[in-house]
């Protein structure tokens, strides 16, 4: 997250300074979709890191088995595909929400399939939004607005 820790801020919540680019972690096993979501997010002035599966995402977030001390990166939003081999986006969501360090980070689930039970399952587990693929620029704009609202 941006500055605001200590110094002038007396609030508990980290304050985002103007000009900070949100850092988004995008998780998707499909190469084309990763490239697309990255471009969509960059077009919305986000800094983007991509991961090709949930275990790699967890490593990056500091929750993985192979995370090295001192390499934990801060992200403001995690957007993940639902259907991934091995660990699904739903399972990734659960792990994030179970973490005391990361549970406040908004998680958005993407899926190419519009399955109501899947959607409610994710929202119940704490996903901020559920988005249908393929994503459009307008979806990402809405996402960013939502994210900025959460931060402020």
């Amino acid at each position, binding site marked *: 997250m941006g500055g605001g820790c200590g110094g002038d801020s007396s609030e508990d919540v980290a304050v985002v300074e103007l000009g900070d680019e949100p850092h988004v972690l995008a998780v998707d*096993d*499909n*190469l*084309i*979709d990763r*490239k*697309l979501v990255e*471009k*969509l997010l960059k*077009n919305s002035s986000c800094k983007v890191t991509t991961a090709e599966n949930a275990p790699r995402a967890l490593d990056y977030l500091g929750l993985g088995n192979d995370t090295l001390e001192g390499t934990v990166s801060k992200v403001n939003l995690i957007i993940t595909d639902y*259907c991934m*081999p091995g660990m699904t986006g739903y399972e990734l969501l659960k792990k994030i929400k179970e973490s005391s360090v990361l549970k406040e980070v908004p998680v958005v689930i993407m899926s*190419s399939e519009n399955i109501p039970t899947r959607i409610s399952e994710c929202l119940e587990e704490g996903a901020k939004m559920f988005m249908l*693929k*393929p994503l*459009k*620029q307008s979806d990402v704009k809405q996402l960013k607005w939502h994210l900025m609202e959460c931060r402020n």
Partner: protein
Amino acid sequence: MDLVQLQRQLVEYRTSLYHEGFLDAQFTQLQELQDENNPDFVVEVVSLFFEDSERLLNELTTALEQQSVDFKRVDAHVHQLKGSSSSIGAQRVQKVCIAFRNYCEEKNVEGCLKCLQQVKHEYSLVKTKLESMFQLEQQILSAGGSIPM
């Protein structure tokens, strides 16, 4: 052919691809993502799609040649192909993938083989058409013109 004629030809060609269902609105989204910072974005993404699809089609061919077909594996590959084709707007390829997945669910080998043939055909068609379109765009750019939207 002069520049104006080339540009007109491109617009007509592109329009026909939408009309015939080869491309859908998602392809337009891709084009809108391209800008001065990423002038080759569409070609890059489509090239990735070609590489990835060819890999998947080979995997599918192998998987369906097995004595005992692993339908989960076949379905996983088709799911990937369906996703990528949907993401770039290759509508006809995506549609065959939907039927393909149904046959996987039914564990219907013949149905799957039929779909594999169909998806290879549709993929080959859209690949040829997109390559022709890119070639036209290149000609326009080389002639000093800009690509009409």
